[in-house]
């Protein structure tokens, strides 16, 4: 495929990731006819964007462009994801209600809330786990409650045998040595089109041992709610307020993109940056002011600036300027990464290059930049 075809594919993926419909100020005919749909499908799968592309093309009335069999695969991916979202929403509601009955404060984070708050509630954002956030002091009670609902802990799905197997010892140890999440809970399902529900419980909005910490009593002091349309009824779920939701989306992305341990295992996905873009564009002026105040109050500007800069680089947005974070965007910090042995690494090129590559970026030893010590405080 020539460069024009690849450029058109990435242009479409970037547009689909942040817009619900094709922007009116862009010319469809300058992009869509150039797209190599085989390349696009592979890239969309790698970035878990098949349902997003399908939702975007349908809402833009552009689904006639992909070849017939790809069109079918896209529509099926969207419907599969909608079904998963609806079933997971019911399950999230069951878990949240059980926790509330025991007096546990809980917020749903990421997919189960984002599908409505950021993506319009039509199943366009790929759904995976039911993510919850709780106070750390509630973790034993949460584990007991979730297990009481039929979930099992420390198990993993072996797709070859389609059975649940023990989580590898390395993974169990990771949860113990970096205590900011409970080991995932899974509940096997039969006849659902997917093998199990997964609940992922987090009790730190940054990560264990980071120099940047925010008391969870602040994070969960006030919660917002989203109304998620289901098969039969609308379900209301508790979620983080918009400023804390923005912060958590940023810290999550930072962890996925900064640590060699994660970089080596999986490439960073475009959709995570799109989540950030969409978070920013839903904020009211008052939310932006609150967010800036929280970033300053909790002294967490460096990782927020790192993420916002790369969102701006990919999508041409102005998050860094909007939050006044320019002072935290020196080059060495923006191109740094944290090595497994606790030292510092660097990468070259742009984040857009990183996202588009099928391979992890080459990392090389580097002097420790400003802020890095706080990022990897517990990585020794």
């Amino acid at each position, binding site marked *: 495929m020539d460069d024009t075809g690849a450029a058109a594919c990435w242009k479409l993926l970037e547009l689909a990731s942040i817009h619900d419909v094709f922007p009116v100020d862009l010319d469809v005919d300058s992009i869509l006819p150039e797209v190599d749909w085989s390349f696009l499908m592979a890239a969309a799968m790698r970035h878990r964007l098949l349902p997003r592309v399908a939702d975007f093309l349908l809402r833009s009335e552009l689904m006639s462009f992909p070849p017939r069999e790809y069109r079918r695969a896209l529509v099926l991916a969207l419907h599969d994801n909608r079904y998963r979202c609806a079933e997971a929403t019911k399950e999230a509601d069951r878990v949240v209600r059980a926790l509330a009955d025991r007096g546990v404060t809980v917020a749903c984070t990421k997919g189960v809330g984002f599908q409505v708050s950021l993506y319009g509630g039509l199943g366009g954002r790929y759904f995976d786990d039911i993510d919850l956030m709780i106070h750390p002091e509630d973790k034993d009670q949460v584990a007991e409650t979730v297990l009481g609902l039929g979930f099992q802990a420390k198990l993993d799905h072996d797709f070859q045998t389609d059975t649940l197997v023990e989580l590898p010892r390395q993974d169990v140890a990771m949860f113990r040595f970096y205590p900011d999440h409970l080991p995932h809970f899974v509940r096997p399902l039969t006849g659902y089109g997917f093998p199990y529900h997964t609940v992922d419980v987090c009790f730190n909005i940054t990560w264990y041992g980071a120099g940047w910490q925010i008391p969870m009593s602040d994070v969960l002091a006030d919660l917002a709610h989203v109304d998620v349309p289901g098969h039969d009824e609308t379900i209301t779920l508790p979620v983080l307020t918009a400023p804390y939701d923005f912060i958590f989306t940023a810290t999550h992305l930072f962890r996925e993109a900064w640590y060699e341990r994660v970089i080596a295992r999986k490439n960073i996905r475009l959709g995570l940056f799109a989540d950030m873009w969409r978070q920013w564009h839903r904020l009211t002026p008052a939310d932006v002011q609150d967010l800036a105040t929280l970033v300053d109050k909790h002294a967490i500007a460096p990782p927020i600036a790192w993420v916002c800069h790369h969102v701006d680089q990919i999508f041409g947005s102005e998050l860094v300027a909007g939050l006044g974070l320019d002072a935290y965007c020196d080059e060495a910090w923006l191109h740094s990464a944290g090595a497994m042995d606790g030292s510092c690494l660097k990468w070259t090129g742009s984040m857009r290059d990183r996202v588009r590559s099928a391979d992890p970026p080459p990392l090389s030893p580097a002097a420790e930049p400003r802020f890095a010590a706080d990022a990897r405080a*517990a*990585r020794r």
Partner: protein
Amino acid sequence: MAGEWPEEFEKLLRTYLPLLRDDDPLARTIGLADLGLDSMSTIGLLVDLEESFDVQFPDDALVPETFATTTSLWSVLSGLSDQTSG
């Protein structure tokens, strides 16, 4: 310090301590982190110890304190080995 722990244990532990020279003795109380044991290699060491000594560290032993010094680590491991053999 020879004889406080088996050679197999020391040999395995040394492979995770890049800052400990081959001819340096493995002191009982020096911090293993100071000898180059980081969090990621701690996990590798844990798995290797469990396989080599046919034990499983309980959850409450999977804490940094267990891996703080040679003595603390051997204390937990030897206790598990005794339970297995007993």
